[in-house]
């Protein structure tokens, strides 16, 4: 019996102590007609060697590809120490630090994490994480609406990740909140300022600003923030945390900075893993801290006046306030945050800036190599961080199939989410891509495009 230590003799002794003869008697309060031990699908148990063989076979079937795809999840260097330390049993198998005295390791680490994120984003406070980027945006929207009271409309640029919009829609739609689209300018691929200005009415609770946006392009954040604030509307910044090693912190955008900052934390030491687990981060101004969802760790002192850490402002949360809580969120993504904190400590500000710069430079090099091919051009003229939209003079779905067969993931096709971006491909080259890999990609692409 896997993971059950009882010997027959022990089981007998225990049943005797309870005063029953058989384990089945312990279930005698369950109406008999509800007991059904028949399982039709679940196969017989595997031992550890068996499951290792089966898992390895499945993992190997997925093979190894050279990723030129980003679109919300990025293949970055992860120091070996990150996961070796994060999976120490004391981190891996502990739970939410309800007993603070027995959880100082996790609590101090989370306090350090909050401090790192606040500094990276230039904000006053950070929570201890949310599930991932897209649902973090939904939580930010709910938070902005709470803070703005009667205002129920959110301006959501079309240039944000389409899955972020969809997720937000799913989560907020039953609370009477409406999401209005703001188009992108067709040349720059960034927020259309004149449409934005028209839409910024009294009923708008917040403007969402992605930086970089889904197309990799850099928005004019200073002007956007100032315009939004002038019209009495909050700013929710959606950012890539690694980019903040070199890009202006949202807390410094415009005159007064963003009000809420969220994003996907995956680029801080989390493997791609087909989409999760990742973690969402959320930072905000001091003024909004009581509207925040999720766990928050505070530094305090113990009975001897010694420094210690504890869960704080729990009166916002579901286990205290129940139906009046700021969110139903309970567990967050502790283990992922452990990894991210290790990542930021091991890389340091210099290492992270270097990874960000290399990703930028590699993407630039990739774009140069690919656009040298006839029939391949850059779709937008804005500066980018580490992703870029290419318009290709061939059927992109066929192209992806052909290049995948060569062991390369060519990028993310955009047409299914943006009708007008037919045969457009969002590409990315992080610091891990080599020039040889880019040449290889270019070679295959040229062969395919020239066949037309």
């Amino acid at each position: 019996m896997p993971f059950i230590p009882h010997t027959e003799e022990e089981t007998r002794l225990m049943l005797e102590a309870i005063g029953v003869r058989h384990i089945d008697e312990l279930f005698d309060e369950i109406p008999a007609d509800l007991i059904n031990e028949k399982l039709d699908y679940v196969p017989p148990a595997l031992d550890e060697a068996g499951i290792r063989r089966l898992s390895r076979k499945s993992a190997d079937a997925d093979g190894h590809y050279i990723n030129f795809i980003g679109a919300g999840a990025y293949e970055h260097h992860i120091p070996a120490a990150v996961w070796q330390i994060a999976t120490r049993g004391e981190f891996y198998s502990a739970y939410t630090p309800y007993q603070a005295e027995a959880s100082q390791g996790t609590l101090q680490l989370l306090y350090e994490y909050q401090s790192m994120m606040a500094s990276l984003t230039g904000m006053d406070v950070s929570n201890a994480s949310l599930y991932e980027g897209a649902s973090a945006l939904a939580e930010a929207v709910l938070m902005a609406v709470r803070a703005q009271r009667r205002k129920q409309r959110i301006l959501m640029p079309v240039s944000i990740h389409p899955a972020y919009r969809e997720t937000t829609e799913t989560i907020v739609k039953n609370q009477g909140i409406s999401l209005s689209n703001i188009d992108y300018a067709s040349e720059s691929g960034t927020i259309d300022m004149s449409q934005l200005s028209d839409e910024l009415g009294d009923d708008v609770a917040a403007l969402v600003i992605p930086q970089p946006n889904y197309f990799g392009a850099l928005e004019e954040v200073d002007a956007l923030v100032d315009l939004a604030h002038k019209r009495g509307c909050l700013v929710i910044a959606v950012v890539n945390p690694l980019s903040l090693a070199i890009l202006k912190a949202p807390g410094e955008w415009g005159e007064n900075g963003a009000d809420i900052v969220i994003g996907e934390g995956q680029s801080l030491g989390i493997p791609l893993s087909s989409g999760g687990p990742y973690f969402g981060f959320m930072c905000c101004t001091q003024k909004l801290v009581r509207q925040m969802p999720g766990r928050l760790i505070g530094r305090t002192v113990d009975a001897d006046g010694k420094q210690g850490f504890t869960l704080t402002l729990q009166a916002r949360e579901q286990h205290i306030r129940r139906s009046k809580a700021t969110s139903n969120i309970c567990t967050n993504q502790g283990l992922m945050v452990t990894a991210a904190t290790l990542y930021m400590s091991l890389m340091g500000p210099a290492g992270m800036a270097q990874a960000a710069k290399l990703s930028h430079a590699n993407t630039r090099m990739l774009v140069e190599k690919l656009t040298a091919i006839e029939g391949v051009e850059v779709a937008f003229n804005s500066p980018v961080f580490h992703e870029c939209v290419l318009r290709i003079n061939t059927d992109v779905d066929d192209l992806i199939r052909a290049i995948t067969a060569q062991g390369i993931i060519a990028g993310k096709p955009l047409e299914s989410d943006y009708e007008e971006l037919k045969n457009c491909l969002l590409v990315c080259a992080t610091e891990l891509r080599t020039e040889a890999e880019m040449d290889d990609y270019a070679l295959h692409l040229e062969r395919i495009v020239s066949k037309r």
Partner: protein
Amino acid sequence: MTELIFEQSTAGRINNAQFLAGTPAIDDIPESLLRKKRPGLPEVSEMQAVRHYTRLSQLNFSIDTQFYPLGSCTMKHNPRICNEAAMYDGFSGRHPSAPDSTGQGVLSCLYDLQEILKDISGMSEVSLAPMAGAQGEFTGIAMIRAYHEARNDDAREEILVPDAAHGTNPATAVMCGYKVREIPTLDNGDVDIDALREAIGPQTAGLMLTNPSTLGVFETQITEIAELVHGAGGLLYYDGANMNAILGKVKPGEMGFDVIHLNLHKTFSTPHGGGGPGAGPVGVNERLVPFLPVPKIVESSGEYTLLDKKDCPQSIGRLSCFMGNTGILLRAWVYARLLGHDGMKRVADYATLNANYMKAKLEQAGFEMAYKTRRATHEFILTLKKEKAETGVTAMDFAKRLLDKGYHAPTTYFPLLVPECFLIEPTESESLEELDGFIKAMEEIQQEAIEQTEMVKSAPHSLPVRRLDDVRAARQLDVVWQEEQT
């Protein structure tokens, strides 16, 4: 006390092994968009970082180091092979938006998990998309709402929740735009069915129920409850927090539930990770199938595909950017295959045996059970109100003193209905010696409460810190380190 990582930082120190080679330029990004001031991240050597976080880890209690009988959390053994497998390159290196053809391995495992969960829950279909129990709850209630709306049944504005329910239940109902009405509990721990009958009506969208309940007993009137809710046109939601008690024995679908969520970080042993990540798959019966969230994993002649909103127009939509907590789902799949067909039922058997053994022994030692006449399920509640009245020692004091004795405390002061309570859940993976050790510790504290009251009231005495000032933490909020403070 361990110094903060920031206090170990030295300006200009670089961990060169992680400073990747190259001289990249960023001269094509306008100055106005660039960062002027470096972020205040620590500048430490690799050894400093490794040593610091290793030391921090050693300040934690965890399943790997201590008995952790936290009620309703199912802190069972986390097999290492589950982590190893999820970290295999083919799984961990795959990009979520890469073509489905490059993910047939991972998708086949997830599909297998889906089928296993269908089998044990007795539901028609399962979605693996929700990332935690609370998100599973949200998904379930959002589907209930979509179901009523699709039938133009718009007057249903209330969700019923027993007063013993976990806080996420009412919070979830509100997130889905519902009003919450609480149903009282009888002295024996069952739902007050007369009160339920009174409360139920054409305004009822559904009832959220945990069974076994958070009171550590099996709700015996479940069939009658289901009939009542369905009779009024409402749907029945199953919170799978306590599935470990009935795994392989009772299927929620056969109890009459229309929609369920399961906590894989409980029943299927995925790591709690200091507070997540979890995974909260949902299962539904036929009438809710069209509303399941996307992406949806389907199989056709041995080929696996992810469907999105365009393929499933009635779906409530997406819950995350990609495919939920895939790596956690993989760990749960490995665990499920290790248990196999016969192992499922044994989990419930031995989790229940351990709980009833502890209940019997603690009762013998003079502790009062909240529901004496009832069998324990995989957990049970004892109340320390007598101890408090006699010595002034509270459940919190008992909890802190247990830490001194090397045991993580059970869940305290939850459910809110029982005064001075401990919700104790040993799980099936604990041995008789461990259970006896905990019982002995409780007996010792019982004595200490009488003979050394102050010592117990000021516990813990042997941990890295003593009791913390929570009031100060909230009043003088310090959630971010600032250089000038130190």
